[in-house]
């Protein structure tokens, strides 16, 4: 039995219930037993002093790559979930583009059982939409759903066959799991290396036009309307995508979407000098896109923030730009990057926390536990943040195997100091005082 845990003197923030006050929180039996002050816990418990720190529900990442099975040199469930814990994430939804891909019940079972024995936080696998993620035939979604798949996605590819995508959207409604679409028209983005724009022209790299994303977003909105499916659009990156989704939501279509920390903070100019760690799909865009994305978060068009954590080995990225794989390791820098927006006055802190907790919990739904809130009875998943802690990104110290980040040596302000998953410490910075009661 895990010893109960008292977190005291923290600045409690829970946008789900409008909580914003200093107080204590008591965790027992994997649940939040009570929130507030004045109560005395029973004897025999551990204690964390969160004085001066923010205490909120554990973050939920609806989009990451844990690479297992098949690419264990890039990341494993063990290392990826430790990276998640350092980043304040207590629930991660892992994408199915592994080898073999998560396109049937057995592979979903494999991820779940590996996560149960080796994971540092909760892992909710996402199954493919199509067999092998090949975009030709539907995968056995109902069986995967029963085995615990949280959503369906052919992430990395768009399902470019419109009829097949319609069928997937219709079929998935019987078990009420969202379909996540990686919106990019491959015919238009083929062999593209970065955002199409003047930086790509200067560098002589083939561009990925914003329209490649927007065409796909527009089609999937039409299919969501046609099918009535719960569609979630992954990592939107352009101003026009925000507008398309805004209009669709105004018309009452059931869609949600996410944005990554890097698309909110980094521009295409990061690629100058051919930094393969800034090679990301969708590509880093322009300052105008960043403004539209931030506005979209603020006015609710963009529902959640997800990392698209995409770890790769050093060798994968040490090559010609065109041969390097897409993606950056993002779990451990997500909060620090996002807090920059808070410090700059572009995003309220409460809204940021909701986009990482309550909002993704709403997309996942109630079938995987009461996540993303500090309500009594909810899962004992807690993240403790120092919003003003200044630090320098040192990729060699990452828990993730993926040290591929364009943020190496960047200075960030705001850091996760402790993460509690299922009532137990999953990560704790050395500066945090923890001990047994009555010590």
């Amino acid at each position, binding site marked *: 039995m895990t010893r109960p845990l008292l977190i005291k003197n923290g600045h409690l923030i829970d946008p789900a219930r409008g909580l914003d006050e200093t107080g204590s929180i008591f965790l027992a039996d994997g649940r939040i037993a009570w929130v507030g002050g004045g109560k005395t816990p029973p004897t025999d418990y551990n204690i964390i002093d969160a004085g001066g720190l923010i205490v909120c529900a554990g973050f939920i990442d609806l989009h990451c790559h844990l690479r297992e099975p098949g690419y264990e040199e890039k990341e494993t469930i063990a290392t990826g979930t430790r990276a998640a814990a350092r980043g304040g994430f207590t629930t991660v939804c892992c994408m199915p583009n592994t080898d073999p891909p998560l396109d049937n019940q057995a592979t979903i079972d494999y991820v779940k059982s590996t996560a149960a024995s080796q994971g540092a936080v909760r892992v909710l696998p996402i199954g493919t939409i199509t067999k092998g993620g090949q975009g030709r035939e539907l995968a056995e979604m109902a069986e995967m759903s029963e085995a615990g798949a949280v959503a369906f996605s052919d992430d990395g590819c768009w399902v470019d066959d419109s009829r097949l995508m319609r069928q997937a959207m219709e079929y998935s409604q019987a078990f009420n799991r969202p379909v996540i679409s990686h919106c990019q028209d491959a015919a238009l983005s083929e062999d593209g290396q970065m955002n199409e724009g003047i*930086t790509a022209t200067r560098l002589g790299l083939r561009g990925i036009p914003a329209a490649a994303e927007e065409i796909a977003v527009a089609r999937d909105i039409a299919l969501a309307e046609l099918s009535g499916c719960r569609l979630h659009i992954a990592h939107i990156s352009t101003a026009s995508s925000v507008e398309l989704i805004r209009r669709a939501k105004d018309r009452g279509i059931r869609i949600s979407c996410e944005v990554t920390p890097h698309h909110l903070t980094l521009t295409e100019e990061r690629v100058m000098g051919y930094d393969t760690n800034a090679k990301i799909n969708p590509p880093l865009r322009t300052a105008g896109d960043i403004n539209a994305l931030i506005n979209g978060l603020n006015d609710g068009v963009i529902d959640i923030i997800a990392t698209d954590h995409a770890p790769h080995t050093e060798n994968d990225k040490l090559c010609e*730009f*065109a041969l390097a794989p897409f993606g950056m390791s993002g779990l451990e820098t997500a909060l620090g990057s996002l807090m920059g927006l808070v410090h700059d006055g572009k995003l309220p802190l409460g809204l940021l926390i909701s986009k990482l907790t309550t909002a993704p919990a709403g997309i996942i739904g109630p079938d995987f536990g009461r996540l993303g809130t500090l309500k009594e009875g909810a899962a004992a998943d807690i993240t403790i943040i120092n919003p003003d802690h200044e630090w320098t990104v040192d990729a060699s110290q990452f828990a993730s195997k993926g040290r591929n980040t364009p943020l190496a040596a960047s200075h960030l302000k705001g850091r996760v100091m402790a993460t509690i998953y299922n009532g137990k410490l999953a990560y704790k910075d050395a500066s945090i005082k923890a001990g047994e009661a009555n010590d």
Partner: protein
Amino acid sequence: MRITPKDEVRPVAGAESQEQPPVWRHRHILDLDDFSAAEIGLVMETSDAMMEILSRPIKKVPTLRGKTIVTLFYEPSTRTRSSFEMAAKNLSADVVNLNAQVSSSVKGECLTDALATLEALGADMVIMRHPMSGAPYVAARRIEASMINAGDGWHAHPTQALLDLYTIRQHKTSLKGLKVVIVGDIKHSRVARSNIWGLTKMGADVTVCCPYTLLPFGLEDTRGIFPEVTVTPDIERALEGADVVMALRLQKERQQSGLLPSIREYARYYQLTEARLAEAKADAIVLHPGPVNEDIEIASGVAHGPQSVINRQVTNGVAVRMALLYLLSGSKRL
């Protein structure tokens, strides 16, 4: 009318000042975007000295004796490679030629292995040609040797641009204020990109002319990231009053990839013909980085005509590359 290069009357040895040369900051030559006008000027003047060596019966000086220069080519290129090889040998360097191939199945291993070989050979300078933009930058970060970009993907071909500048300077005393027109496949052209950098730094006005499918994205709003040029799809208008016309090689695969309906149609609307060249100034010169597709991007009469300086570009290429090897040989290893 035959165009007479201005330098055929060489100045007699005369008054010289003891001025210091502009500081040469480059350990590598990757593109011209980080060159100052003064540095380009230094390359031009040093190339003049190398031209004198090329005029001798014995075209060899001992300057780079004991230095190892490796040419590492991931794309076939007889012209550029032999130009570099001759330049290196004229300076008495030892030259090793390596051929390599890009294989996407082995990802970066290929480049990594090649770089390890270069280190083992003790290369002092590496001349690299690669089909992928940026490859020499990746290499330069990883090896001790000085890296010279002999063409990378669509990105840059700085030594070609410098020899083009040198050739223009031979015929037009100054580059400042010249109207230079680049006609052809700008989008996929490393020669065009490096020339745009070099020409604009030297004060020339650049016009690019091509069908819009061959125009790189964003030239109408360069945001300071790329030099400003004039763009027009109309070749007659582009050539009006031009001092220098540069035609680019048209790759046949541009038709297959759907950028052009046919090579025939391209030639009809964009070929540099005698009639079109008449729109330019009477003393305009014609350049082409080679190899020439005669009667596609340029009429054979123009390529071999009195205004063509295409053959001079080849000789100048050796001198300019000698100058660059000499200037780089003084850069200290870090």
